[in-house]
């Protein structure tokens, strides 16, 4: 008999992993907490699967440990469902963190692409000279196409060789241990400028809500350039006072109040806003940033689904026609353009997805 039942103390849960099961087959549910022992019993709903054996206990300290239960999971349902599990010992159910698991197919940003006016750009859409032939490592990126068939956004591209991104098949600077691919621009070259055509697919009225997000890894120690994403009326650079963008700045663009590692954003005539993020760009890693407009509130996000800054947009009546991603001395892997304001839950999904994939 375990000490838990002798003492009449229920198991106390501080964490459960994974929080999401997205595929059928063998898996392990690991519960962390106190008052755990091999005699603890895990019950899971039949719709989630079956528990195949007792939990294997590993002590973390005198008072904390982990129980790893082998399970066989069933395929996720059509709609994401929370499966409530029960951990007990001697008939006493656990206290602490809820032992529930999200049973859902694997989420990716394509779920945010709801209409032809939205788009998710990933390295899978980067192409060299000939579409749809996959691009080779080190080749110039001639066109960057949106993922899937829902998006109607036209490609982002550049017809000037010295302004094209360079496909890097395995970037080693991400916060994660996986060397994910992306568009790279080293210290010795121009900025990479991915621009759309004015072909109607990128049109957006001044009052429309929107969401733009980018995941970036700086690559230079001495003079980090910049990375920005924008929805604009102009193809070129320059601050025209009528541009929606968010801009992570570095040494090269430290003129004005902003400094290296700061976030600059602008929403139409709302004026530029500065957020002193104090990111240590020299340290590399992964940076996720986003700008979202919902009605009269523009929110800025940095490595979190909780806004670091909010402000009111302006009242311009012109229409934006172009999408653009620009970066220098950094690797850009994925971007999202949405012609609607993502919900708070969708922002959490997006940031979690990138955070789990690229690290932080």
């Amino acid at each position: 008999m375990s000490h838990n039942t002798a003492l009449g103390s229920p198991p106390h849960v501080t964490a459960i992993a994974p929080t999401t099961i997205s595929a059928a087959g063998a898996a392990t549910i690991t519960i962390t907490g106190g008052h755990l022992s091999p005699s603890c019993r895990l019950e899971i709903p039949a719709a989630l699967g079956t528990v195949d054996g007792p939990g294997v206990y590993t002590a973390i300290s005198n008072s904390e440990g982990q129980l790893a239960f082998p399970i066989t999971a069933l395929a996720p349902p059509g709609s994401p469902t929370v499966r409530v599990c029960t951990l007990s010992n001697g008939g006493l159910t656990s206290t602490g963190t809820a032992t529930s698991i999200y049973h859902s197919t694997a989420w990716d940003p394509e779920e945010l692409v709801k209409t032809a006016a939205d788009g998710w750009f990933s390295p899978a859409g980067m192409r060299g000279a000939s579409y749809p032939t996959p691009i080779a490592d080190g080749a110039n990126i001639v066109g960057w196409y949106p993922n899937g068939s829902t998006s109607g956004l036209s490609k982002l591209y550049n017809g000037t060789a010295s302004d094209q991104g360079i496909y890097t098949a395995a970037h080693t600077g991400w916060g994660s241990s996986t060397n994910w691919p992306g568009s790279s621009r080293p210290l010795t070259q121009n900025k990479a400028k991915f621009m759309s055509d004015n072909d109607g697919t990128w049109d957006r009225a001044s009052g429309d809500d929107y969401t733009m997000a980018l995941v970036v890894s700086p690559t230079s120690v001495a003079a980090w350039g910049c990375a920005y994403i924008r929805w604009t009326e102009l193809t070129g650079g320059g601050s025209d006072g009528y541009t929606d963008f968010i801009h992570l700045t570095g040494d090269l663009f430290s003129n004005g109040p902003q400094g290296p590692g700061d976030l600059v954003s602008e929403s139409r005539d709302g004026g530029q806003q500065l957020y002193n993020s104090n990111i240590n760009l020299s340290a590399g890693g992964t940076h996720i940033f986003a700008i979202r407009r919902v009605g009269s509130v523009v929110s800025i996000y940095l490595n979190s689904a909780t806004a670091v800054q909010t402000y009111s947009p302006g009242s311009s009546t012109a229409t934006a026609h172009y999408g653009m991603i620009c970066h220098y001395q950094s690797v850009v892997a994925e971007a999202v353009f949405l012609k609607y304001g993502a919900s708070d839950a969708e922002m959490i999904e997006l940031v979690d997805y990138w955070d789990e994939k690229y690290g932080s």
Partner: protein
Amino acid sequence: MKYYEFDTELACQERAVVYNTRQQAASRAVGDMVTTEWAKPRQGVNGKWYLQKPLHLYCKDIDLICCVVVDDPEFPPEEPTQ
């Protein structure tokens, strides 16, 4: 990064045409119908005109085209700043 430095925009544009032609040929050779330019001439803060020097190409007659090769000239900001 090295640049060709010119006193006039015209001289810079003329050199750009040469490299753009070469770039178009290189693009067509690999089926790239999008990339039609090598680089755009830019004016520096000192008023002179600059064309990015290709890493893999070098003009042997820079004296004849009245330019010099310089490192990293200063350009006005072209990106959104405060």
